[in-house]
């Protein structure tokens, strides 16, 4: 009787234990993966930078350069080898190698692992135009009122491709639009993801500074948009997320893009 009682008491936990199966995950993230940074422009020489990652307490701007690597880039029919110009920077000077429409693959071996990345050179954007070359905007002494459209940039985009607008204030000194205040983190160069549209409306509070802007329209690949979007708002142990990368066995980005440029002047 006692045995039977104990049997009932014990059998269920034992059964449940029996079906308990652990599933251990291996941590693939590693602090030793190389960081790749390469932007390929058609008709330009190639420059690829290789860095090590930094320890959490390292205050250097970039990780230590990775030197002495043999970097190969293939376009499917031809493979070229880059040479190290300065420490950690690998170049290929023949500007005819990068052509629109081709797929480029980077490969090199680092710490007995093959690192690779692939990208497609997009076609140059067409009909990039601005409605106005300049715009007047008078800032009031208090925070801005209703948003007001100052200008419109347009380009062809029948296939809804990814485009990024880069606004680069090329003046030597900067005059803040916001009544003398500069919002924390405001930069004289900034990028806008145009969300696959053929148009971008500039409004009064788009700009942190008055002045002359070089406006660059970049036709980019999805991997670049992914990197841009990953400007994560939060970084704590509840929401920390690895940044997407198109580099296998590595971090960073290897991407191709084409550009067109206009000028725009914002004055008061």
């Amino acid at each position, binding site marked *: 009787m006692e045995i039977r009682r104990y049997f009932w008491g014990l*059998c269920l936990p034992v059964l449940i234990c029996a079906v308990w199966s652990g599933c251990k995950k291996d941590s693939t993230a590693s602090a030793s993966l190389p960081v790749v940074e390469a932007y390929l422009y058609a008709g330009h020489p190639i420059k690829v930078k290789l860095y090590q990652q*930094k320890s959490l307490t390292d*205050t250097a701007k970039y990780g230590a350069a990775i030197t002495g690597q043999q970097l190969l880039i293939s376009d499917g029919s031809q493979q070229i080898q880059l040479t190290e110009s300065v420490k950690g920077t690998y170049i290929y000077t023949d500007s005819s190698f990068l052509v629109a429409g081709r797929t480029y693959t980077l490969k090199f071996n680092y710490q007995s692992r093959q690192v690779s990345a692939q990208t497609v050179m997009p076609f140059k954007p067409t009909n990039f135009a601005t409605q106005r070359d300049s715009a007047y905007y008078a800032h009031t*002494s208090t*925070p801005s009122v209703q*948003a007001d459209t100052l200008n419109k940039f347009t380009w062809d985009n029948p296939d809804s491709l990814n485009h990024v607008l880069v606004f680069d204030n090329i003046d030597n000194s900067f005059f803040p639009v916001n009544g003398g205040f500069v919002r924390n983190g405001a930069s004289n160069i*900034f990028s806008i993801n145009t969300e696959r549209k053929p148009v971008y409306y500039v409004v009064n509070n788009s700009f942190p500074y008055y002045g002359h802007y070089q406006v660059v329209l970049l036709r980019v690949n999805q991997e670049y948009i992914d990197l841009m979007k990953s400007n994560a708002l939060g970084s704590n142990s509840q929401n920390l997320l690895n940044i997407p990368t198109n580099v296998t066995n590595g*971090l960073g*980005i290897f991407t191709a893009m084409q550009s067109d440029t206009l000028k725009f002047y914002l004055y008061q």
Partner: protein
Amino acid sequence: MLLFLLISSFAYIAHAQNKRDALKKDTLNKFVARPLDDLLDTLSINYGLKIVFERDSLHRFDVVERFFNESLDNVLAKVCRQFTLNYWVDAAGTIYVLQNVDDMARLRQLAKTVKQPKRVSKIVAKADTSNEQDIEALYENRDKRTKAPLSVQSKDQRQLVASPPTEQPVQSPGPVPSVVQAAPRQEVHLSVTVNGKVTDQNSGLALPSATIHVRNTKLFVLASSDGNFTLFNVPSDTCTLEVSYSGYQQDNFRLSADLLKQPLALSLLPALTTLNEVSIIGQKSGVMNTDVKKVGVLQLSPANLDKLPSLGDKDVMRAFQLMPGVGATNESSSGAYVRGGTPDQNLVVFDGFTIYQVDHLYGFFSAFNSNAIKDIQLYKGGFSSQYGGRLSSVTEINGKDGNTKSTTYGVDLSLLSLNAFLETPINDKSSLLVSVRRSYQGPFYDKIFKQFNASTGGGFRGGGGPGGPGGFGEQTTPASHFYDANVRYTYHADQNNILTWSFYSGEDKTDNSRQLQLPSFIGGGSSPDITDYTKYGNLASSLKWFHQWNKTIHSNTYITYSSYFNDRVRSNSGTTTDSLGNAVNFNNGTIENNNLKDIGLKSDWVWELNNNLRFRYGGFGSFQHINYDYIQDDTTHLISQHNSALSGGGYFETEYEPINALHLQPGIRATYYGPTSGTYLEPRFSASYVVNDNYTLKFATGQFYQFINQVTRDDIADGNRNFWVLSNNSSVPIGRSRHLMGGVAYENDQFLIDVEGYYKWLNGLTQYTITQTGFGFAGGTPTITENFYSGQGRAKGIEVLVQKKLGQYTGWLSYTLADAENKFAVYGNNYYPADQDIRHEFKAINMYHDNRWNFSAVFIFSTGHPYTAPLSTYSITGADGNRVTYFNVSAKNAERLPEYHRLDLSATYDLLKISGDKIGSIGISLFNVYNHVNTWYREYYIRDNAAITTDVNYLGFTPNITLSLRWK
């Protein structure tokens, strides 16, 4: 002689129920000048009262008093007050008069051994020594001999016995003929159906889950949450019912054919708080109970909650966290993390309506006022097909009816909040309960506010929190409070119809609005007004109609409304002067609103065919509408969601017991969900098998769907925001889970050992993130991208509960071994530990009761929560030339925070009235006594290109004082 014994026993039972009523009705009209013991002897003889006291200690008190038609109740109170004594009437009608209520236990022993005053000694001796078997034997004999009726329990009859205004001793045949004559001879009916309601004799409140046991049979039933019960196949209409309920004195009721003509009204008297003699069949007397016959069911009545340590007010949801299977280490959420589930997977139903905001003050306190709650059931999984719409669990809260007999009111005061309630009968048929709770911003509130506000993660950042919204250039201490209110009106139209209106409102508000003082060099225009507030809460109401169609069918029909809101406004407005010198009004900033409206109609029916077969069935329909707007500068809609869902369905469930030991409960639930135009079937099944008196096996399985999710918008600058979204089968899928649960329970008179295991499969889980696009910061409107991630999960675990149910020392040990994993493509192709995953959790709840004192010690230990850690950093320069530093992070949730543990202590002293009734308590609680640093989560910043790690911690040592008072 036989007749004498019969009459004595008869009198004993008759006295049992309404002695207190008799004390109020019988009066004394004479001049008294004699020792107190003498007076008590006289009362005892003249009124047929059994009075127990220590003669020596009372003899020295001389009573010299003229009583003018004073009720006996008042006489006793008056003399007791005069000599600083107490008196207490137990359910058997015995009156105890004593100097210290703490001596009660001794006096009860005394009652059995000490010889009573001569003139009542025979009565006392008979009543005292008459064990139940003797009485039964007597009745049986009488049955056989005379076929005489056995019942004297109808109210009128009792009064005949209990109020004999005679100078004769009780053993005189005075009342007896009345009794006998009052019950005409009639046939004994066999196999009868008995239904009725169990209530508190003082307040008239229903006693849910009271046990009704037919003496000398194995037949028993638990009362429903309304106190109602039905027993089939009761051997005869002369049986005795033993009725018991935690915190009340057990009582016996003899049936009669007359009584059964209408539903029985059985009422119990509260137990004396200083006693530990509760002995209840099939029911535990602990603060919380598990239902050993069902898998994963916890029951809680708030009455005993003051025996547990509390931080602030008594907290029903926190109390559940002390039981196995409910996570206890999430100080930032009062929501239930049940068996690997998240709080939004737990349906919280209050009087039929759904509550969407279940906590106050960043999750530290639950949104439910224990004074307004009758009882709560937590179904940890595998629940009945009566419930649906959530993947994990159900918390069903039943509001408390108002006192139907007299007006009572009370206050609870703590360092956090003031809590007041009023219960009152409106008229013969209706009663009202109102309870209101509001926090005040003392040091205790501020400590918790700052603890959860200083971080950027879990809570809502109040406007002026450290490092709060930049740009205003000025920080003030924000005004912050929470409140909740309950109103419940009950109308007993007749015995078969009860209407109940219930209203709930709860809100948290933090307001940091102020006027900005502009620097002097900025001219033109007035100083702008800054509106800066956060408020969130829930407003809900329901109308319930209970109808007893006949003895076997009753229904509850609800019309419900629930409205959840979560608003944050940060705007500055004012007047400025433009370049032309004109005054221009401006208003800009961010406004974030999430509100949900839920209107529903449902009807739940129960049809009890016999003791072995019962049907539950019903239908439901609801309309939900959700708005979520995130607006900047009045014009830019960063997020704009406006969704509605119409849904409806029905369920059918059978409770069947082919043999007494086996309980089978198959059911099915079907829900039509408008946005997907789909019908979702949820088969359910549960079973239990009573192996013998000690062992019960139980099992449950089922499929569950969820059509609404609460997701979190990360906001590093202003604090995370939780909001509700409806499933749409595209970006937000419909959640589905399957449960498999089993367990075995061992129970004897002293201990309960309960072991349960579970496995759950979950599909269609939703996570939400938003990201801001761009490398350089333009200073203008950011581009925000919403991402909904879909994934799946699985959870498994074993829970062990060892509970000591009776005695001065009670409590339980709880251990849970669990594993909860998720798989979202965004984090890779493997399962990873879910955020709420806890491998080991151990809880020890110890309570010691010594007369008026209650001491408790609660120790909680668990493995740390999983988290994602940065391994290193790296920097990339974008195509525009801006450099960004990123973290290279570990696998999702690959690391563990340090173990969580803490010890809470409390001591409570009961305040008693002269009659021994509890009128309140005073208590002190010490939270996290040894001030262990428990980590909530970690924050990472990049400063000077390096990563800075900061631990955000939970609350350290915090003392609290509570005071509860009740008046009648």
